[in-house]
């Protein structure tokens, strides 16, 4: 049989064992990690759509078939995740952060397992493996206390999620007697007309898990903490790849909604989808608004990730051909540009030793390659053509408009404009503006890092200009889900419902106009370069005011005016809900604890009282 699928899981596990043995020597650990990622990438070439493998596990006399099945979606996700992981691990070869390679390899094993498995037991196991490995990975951040706190928070959410899924798996098992995901999805689809609430209940058990892992509102509260305090080299993986597991899970269960004839519709959508779409939109907007006011650059991009996943959720919840295409496409794009952004941030943080934006600034002269990667990254994230973020955002709008959802679209547009704002804030505060004197000796990342950055830049531009290379596999995925794929055109086209965009044309147009612009720039009068401190200061000499570059840099309370606008919304704290739950639990805990700090008599009294209550209950019954 096609046992090479199994090797996708075993190779990283073996690599992980080797790396764990070598983990004291950081370089070797990283080297093994990188090689394993590369080998897995090579292994992927032997995996094709339609391959499957089954292994019968004997548990308590019951045969549990662990089955693997490669679908279009899984192969797509595998390629993008493993390829990105390879780049990331290559970057991490020269990195100083405390990321542990063997944990990353465990996650890779889980990654490959999740994307290929077709049974819920395997899915659950892989999910747990992934969850725990990532929780432990988060622990190794720069600020130990914070990362411990974050990891605990993440662990709590993650455990709650896995219990929810646990419950769902067993419920489905009880209902169908089968553990195969496809069988169960088909079963749910078949009964959804009769028992919509049942199906909704069961599916939401899974969706809670997926939403927690993807960090969808209102389960997003762990995201900023975990992303911000994870090791800097691990955050790209956390944001780029791991948030997509939730999306993948949602995509597995979404086809059920096609059959929801028993449900009333809202705006041409089953209302469940409608609500879910609004959850996505809320995620996008809330993430954006919260991102404005962060000072920690990683936290800012964590909120940005959260916001982008809102886009994806909003798109796939429509479950139309454009919607799903746009969702998966955006998942890919988000992986690419957010991965690139977090990698550049890792580079910056490794060089400056801080992630506070108010302590950075003006690094672009010192780290030009990183600067340009970051620039292209934020251009992609802002959805500027011809970089890669454009196509998917554009398709998402189209999908929304096709469903006649103008308000949701407007909110997404707001999120997009807001995204531009916070991206620029990060861009300015990290790379532009005044450079503090203590960063005078900051150097560009090592060559290894630069290679990765060049590759990422190339990828962001290439997949922006030639979206067909991604859209064609997505078309296969979409048709495998029973939807009509978007018409395929030449590689450069982003095919939409309303109109097509030929991205190379934009790039040509840009190239020509930039040429013209630079010709104009160079034929006109000469300019001379001056130092950064040579600024207009209303005739004042900065030194006499004791103005240092740090104080002259504008990065604190960057968007203060709109803080007032959003102030009413800040009173609603989702984090506050979970914290409130935690506090309530703690308070209940201290109250209940009081039961047990009395004397023997009281305990005896409890026992007797309990007895009497039961006797009365027995009497009455």
């Amino acid at each position, binding site marked *: 049989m096609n046992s090479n699928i199994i090797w996708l899981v075993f190779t990283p596990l073996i690599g992980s064992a080797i790396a764990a043995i070598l983990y004291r020597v950081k370089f070797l650990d990283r080297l093994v990690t990188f090689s394993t990622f590369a080998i897995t990438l090579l292994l992927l070439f032997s995996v094709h759509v339609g391959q499957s493998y089954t292994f019968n596990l004997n548990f308590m006399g019951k045969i549990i078939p662990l089955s693997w099945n490669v679908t279009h979606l899984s192969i797509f996700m595998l390629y993008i995740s493993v390829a990105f992981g390879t780049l990331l691990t290559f970057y991490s070869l020269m990195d100083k952060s405390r990321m542990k390679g063997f944990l990353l390899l465990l996650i890779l094993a889980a990654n490959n397992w999740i994307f290929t498995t077709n049974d819920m037991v395997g899915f659950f196991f892989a999910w747990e493996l992934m969850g725990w490995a990532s929780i432990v990975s988060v622990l190794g951040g720069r600020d130990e206390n914070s990362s411990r706190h974050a990891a605990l928070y993440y662990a709590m959410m993650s455990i709650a999620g896995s219990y929810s899924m646990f419950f769902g798996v067993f419920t489905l098992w009880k209902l169908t007697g089968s553990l195969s995901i496809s069988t169960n999805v088909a079963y749910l689809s078949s009964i959804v007309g009769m028992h919509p609430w049942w199906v909704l209940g069961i599916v939401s058990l899974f969706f809670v898990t997926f939403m927690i892992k993807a960090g969808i509102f209102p389960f997003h509260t762990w995201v900023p903490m975990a992303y911000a305090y994870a090791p800097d080299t691990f955050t790209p993986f956390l944001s780029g790849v791991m948030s997509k597991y939730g999306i993948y899970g949602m995509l597995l269960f979404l086809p059920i909604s096609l059959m929801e004839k028993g449900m009333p519709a809202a705006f041409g959508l089953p209302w469940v989808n409608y609500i879910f779409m609004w959850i996505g939109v809320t995620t996008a907007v809330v993430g954006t608004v919260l991102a404005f006011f962060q000072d920690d650059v990683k936290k800012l991009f964590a909120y940005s990730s959260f916001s982008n996943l809102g886009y994806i959720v909003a798109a796939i919840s429509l479950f139309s051909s454009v919607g799903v295409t746009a969702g998966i496409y955006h998942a890919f794009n988000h992986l690419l540009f957010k991965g690139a952004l977090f990698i550049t941030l890792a580079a910056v943080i490794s060089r400056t030793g801080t992630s506070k934006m108010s302590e950075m600034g003006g690094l672009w002269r010192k780290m030009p390659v990183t600067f340009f990667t970051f620039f292209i990254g934020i251009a992609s994230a802002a959805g500027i053509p011809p970089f890669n973020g454009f196509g998917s955002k554009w398709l998402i709008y189209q999908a929304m408009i096709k469903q006649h959802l103008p308000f949701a679209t407007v909110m997404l547009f707001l999120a997009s404009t807001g995204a531009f704002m916070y991206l620029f804030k990060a861009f300015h505060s990290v790379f532009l503006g005044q450079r503090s004197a203590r960063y005078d000796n900051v150097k560009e990342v090592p060559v290894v890092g630069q290679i990765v950055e060049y590759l990422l830049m190339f990828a962001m531009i290439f997949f922006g200009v030639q979206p067909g290379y991604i859209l064609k596999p997505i078309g296969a995925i979409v048709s495998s889900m029973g939807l009509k794929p978007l018409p395929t055109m030449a590689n450069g086209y982003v095919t939409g419902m309303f109109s097509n965009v030929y991205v190379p044309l934009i790039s040509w147009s840009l190239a020509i106009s930039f040429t013209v612009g630079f010709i104009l720039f160079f034929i006109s009068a000469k300019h001379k370069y001056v130092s950064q401190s040579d600024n*207009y200061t209303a005739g*004042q000499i900065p030194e006499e*005011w004791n103005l240092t570059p740090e104080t002259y840099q504008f990065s604190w309370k960057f968007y203060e005016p709109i803080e007032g606008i959003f102030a009413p919304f800040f009173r609603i704290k989702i984090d506050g809900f979970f914290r409130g739950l935690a506090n309530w639990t703690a308070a209940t805990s201290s109250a209940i604890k009081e039961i047990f700090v009395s004397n023997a008599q009281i305990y005896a009294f409890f026992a007797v009282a309990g007895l009497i209550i039961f006797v009365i209950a027995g009497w009455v019954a």
Partner: protein
Amino acid sequence: MSEWKDLTNFFRGRSFWMLHYCTGCGAMELPPTMTSRWDMERFGVIPMATPRQADILLVTGYLSLKSLKRLIYTYEQMHAPKWVLGFGSCTINGGVYWDSYNVIERLDKYLPVDLYIAGCMPRPEAILDSFKKLRELVEKGEAKGYEKYVKNYEWYKANQDRVLKRTKPVLQKPEEVTRSA
């Protein structure tokens, strides 16, 4: 090439962007000059917010030593074809402050003044006239104050230093300001 120079000078003369360094009473004359009554925008002259954008530096009145320092700093931040207009007698000879210990008498010693507008106060008409005069000078290529400043920088610098050393940083440091507040 000289035609090109003439052409640029022609345009330069018709597009004076002005930074008005408003000290003393002379600033009072500028609002009427700018607004409906005299409307200096007719001649392409508009006020600018920063020295980077400006072509002419209009110094409207006496300069105490402290403000001289700012003026020099501002002038040096302006971009190359740039001209200084001295406005009123204060910039010429100190005016009523001729004997003050803390006011400079002749702006010419510290910055290359291209044109003085005499009077105390000069009327808006005089200001407009000065713009026309300066335009003529620019078109003829005679207003070369900025080149003079570069050429004779040591002399200007010596003059500036001689008076500026009388000033000491008297401002409070920012943290002291906040502390007292």
